[in-house]
């Protein structure tokens, strides 16, 4: 189980990283901004992989206790956690030589949802869903 979750986290992290990289390029091109001092390809991949590994560990721990309810609880927690992290790009203080910091949240906030999306999209390929049957 843990091995599958580890592969899932690495795959999801790489997928989220690729999506982040594409979005970063598109945003840079469309808005004519340069946040390379704050966000670069290496940091995008590192953060995405770390987020997905942490998610997998959290899933594995929750599964120890919740069994059939793991998916429901984990999905809610992962979504809430991702949503909560958007406070950081809103409150971050960028270096003063970085122009247009008001455009930074538009770049960073969507990226905060890439790991959760990638992880949930790829999960059925690695781990069988556990649903609570409501009858």
């Amino acid at each position, binding site marked *: 189980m843990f091995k599958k979750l580890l592969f899932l986290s690495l795959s999801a992290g790489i997928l989220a990283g690729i999506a982040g990289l594409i979005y970063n390029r598109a945003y840079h091109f469309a808005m004519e901004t340069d946040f390379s001092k704050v966000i670069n390809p290496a940091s995008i991949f590192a953060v995405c992989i770390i987020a997905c590994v942490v998610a997998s560990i959290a899933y594995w721990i929750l599964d120890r206790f919740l069994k059939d309810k793991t998916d429901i609880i984990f999905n809610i927690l992962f979504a809430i956690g991702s949503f909560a992290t958007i406070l950081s790009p809103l*409150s971050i*203080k*960028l270096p*003063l030589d*970085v*122009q247009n*910091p*008001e455009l*930074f949240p538009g770049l960073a906030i969507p990226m905060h949802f890439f790991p959760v999306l990638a992880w949930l999209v790829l999960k059925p390929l690695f781990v069988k869903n556990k649903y609570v049957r409501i009858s």
Partner: protein
Amino acid sequence: MKKLIYPFVALLVLATSVFAVIKSQDWKIKEGYSIKFDAQNPVGVFTALKGDIRFDEKNLPSSKFDVSIDVASINTGNGMQNTHAKSEKWFDAAKYPTIKFTSEAITKTAKGYQAAGMLEMHGEKKATIIPFTFAKTPSGAVFNGSFEVNRLDFKIGEPGGKSSEVIKLDISVPVSKS
């Protein structure tokens, strides 16, 4: 008549050269200037400065600063703080788009120079003294100055709060001969 031409030309040359000596050097503001402010929270910079600088160490009476800062160029490093700083509660950039300083007298001091003049900010004018140094460089010169202003003197923001009432400004302006 011919005899009069040469003395006249000599007089003209002399008058022109005297004028050239009296007139102070005009300086052009170069890229790379910095206008930092520190109100404890926030700390930031203004990134747009323009104006006329006439300065001659040997002729201070004819030296003059007439510079302005674009309020909208404020950068605190945080988008929300920038928007807040430009809002009606603080600088009101839409109504008062520039901060202006016009010197009235420049004098020598023990540490360098000081420019006494009128600082206009947020629609308020206050007599202000800006101490500064002037250092020549291979490509021109650099003006460096540090001074403090009380934002409440200019009716900026409310008393108290996270932002210090006394704002420290550090200015560095590289210039070239124009």
